[in-house]
């Protein structure tokens, strides 16, 4: 995109905001958000990332997106991953290695049940709403 004016920036913000709310509300697709700060990567977030991709492919799951984010702050349980499946509560999984990543795809994304032993809590309420 070329350089924006004030109006263009506002338009962009509104449309992106809309996209995000829709994404949280009605969208059918699931989302996997992996914490990829230095801490997460050092603890194996990239391996988890690859395992997610591989497991999704091998089960031919098409409507799930994987994105990255910064540090969620739960350093004692890195790598951390947030999983958002429509109709289910949003949860954060900790200590997600390749094996757990594959379990999340099979149990959470496909069978729609939570994966025991790896759920952690969100650290704080969102101040931007």
């Amino acid at each position, binding site marked *: *995109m*070329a*350089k*924006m*004016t*004030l109006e263009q*920036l*506002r338009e*962009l*913000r509104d449309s*992106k*905001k809309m*996209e*995000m709310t829709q994404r949280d509300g009605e969208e059918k697709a699931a989302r996997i958000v992996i*914490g990829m*700060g*230095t*801490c997460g*990567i050092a603890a194996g977030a990239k391996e988890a990332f690859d395992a997610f991709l591989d497991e999704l492919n091998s089960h031919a799951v098409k409507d799930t997106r994987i*994105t*990255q*984010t*910064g*540090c*969620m*702050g*739960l*350093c*004692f*349980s890195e790598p*951390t991953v*947030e999983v958002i499946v429509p*109709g*289910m*509560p949003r*949860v954060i999984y*900790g*200590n997600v290695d390749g094996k757990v990543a594959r379990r999340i795809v099979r149990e959470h994304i496909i069978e*729609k*049940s*939570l*994966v*025991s*032993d*790896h*759920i*952690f*809590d969100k*650290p*704080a*309420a*969102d*101040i*931007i709403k």
Partner: protein
Amino acid sequence: MAYKNYILVCAGTACESSKGVALYEALEKELKAQGVEAEAQLVKTGCFGFCEQGPIVKILPDESFYVKVGPEHAAQIVSEHIIKGRQVKELLYDKDQTAGSSSDDIGFYQKQQRIVLRNCGVINPEYIDEYIARDGYAALEKVVFDMSADEVIKELTDAGLRGRGGAGFPTGVKWGFTKKAQSDQKYIVCNADEGDPGAYMDRSTCEGDPHSVLEAMTIAGHTVGANQGFIYIRAEYPLAIERLNNAIDQAREYGLLGDNILGSDFSFDIELRLGAGAFVCGEETALLASIEGKRGMPIPRPPFPAVKGLWGKPTVINNVETWANIPMILLKGAAWFSGIGTETTKGTKVFALTGKINNSGLIEVPMGTTLREIIYDIGGGIRGGKKFKAAQTGGPSGGVITEEFLDIPIDYESLQSIGSMMGSGGMIVMDEDDCMIDVTKFYLDFTVDESCGKCAPCRIGGRTNYNILDKISKGQGSLEDLDTLKTLALAMRKASLCGLGQTAPNPVMSTIHYFEDEYLAHINDGTCPAGKCKDLLAYTVVEDKCIGCTACARVCPVNCISGEVKSVHVIDQDQCIKCGQCLTKCKFDAILKG
């Protein structure tokens, strides 16, 4: 088919010891007995913190938060909550909680408040659009088009924002100085030279939300009349550098950096300057010298950088965490921000919680939160059920906070009054196994190493004090040594040129003050109460307990344990390196440490 409810049972170690396992099994049984296995899924979770109230059960999706739940409550939770959909009132943390309210509303549970870290772990830091969607660059819009420079400064001053690098100087006042200064050129600098051992909040902010720093710096540029910014960041933060550079490129492409920002007549650009990782370069005058390409050595202030900084020009220099606060303050207003925190210190503070704690991590709490809340409610308590001894804040410039101060509300002034400091926010928790002399030696070793050597008090005083501590840790100290430690510490404090030397004796002063008995034990009795100082330790075999299994002899890395099978073993004290492996290996408590 998805479940209607999810019952989350905390299986953290603390909860597990408080009957979490029995509770899990009881719930499992009840779900089956009452025939609702298909309705609710039972899930084990990691520690939620808040362990004093354990075992904890949370039910999703309505987020009911039950505390002190025992196996005897399982039947009721299933029959009432799962089947009839009614909360079990007497188990709720907040008994007055109305139906439908969630644990998000429970102030006591959600101790954290994320302002600086608002986007960390939420957005993709490599896409500017996600930042923009979460009100990103809206504060910049406001500043460029709707607010005068004086209004911006007034807003920051009213908000009560103080520098998060550690010193706590009011940010609005600082900007005011630079704005008033007459000059053809002014600069904006971000201090991302995070050097305290154990602190990583600035790195995480740059990695997780780089645009918040860029936006705030641009706002400062517009406010004080600068058109160039520099981010000074250590080269050992490659990911942060990559994401900042990527963010700068995207902002330039969108016209949020560069000439004529958003079509206005304001131009501003930011470049990165990489530091080699010297601790002293976190001191602002040394940092500026380093940006100029000179050796990073501090110069006496005043003049302060706000008036005479980079290349002699007025320069606003703030820390990453300070910058990240600014867009939110301008968007939500001074009143909102000053409503958080204590009388003298507003807003939140990010701490890197490390050490002997169950849930180490990056946390952000309102100023005025107590250490007890941080350690026990958020951090989940001390690892291995050990006893809390002290928390170290402020890194090599700080001091220790002991148990008696667990309940003081944390802010700049309160920490200073007990001989520690806020510092950049590293918080290292220590338990009964940590020796205070050992810890102090570690910090002094660090500052001696990092001293630039320009002034004598820091260069010589630091080294001498380190040598004395080393002597004490070997059991060779005398009572005079304690006096010398204090005298030198005071001299360093008064006569050192910059903050590094002035604050380097803080760990010494603080530990002597609170743990004098431990120093005396080393000096008078030649013992280390925590069992950490190797020279004061001896491992011996308890004769009547040793059965001669040879396990210790086999694990000893220097082969200094001898003895026949089925006869008492002996440790050769001259050869022993005090690694303690024999103690760990022995199943018969036949090795004595002391």
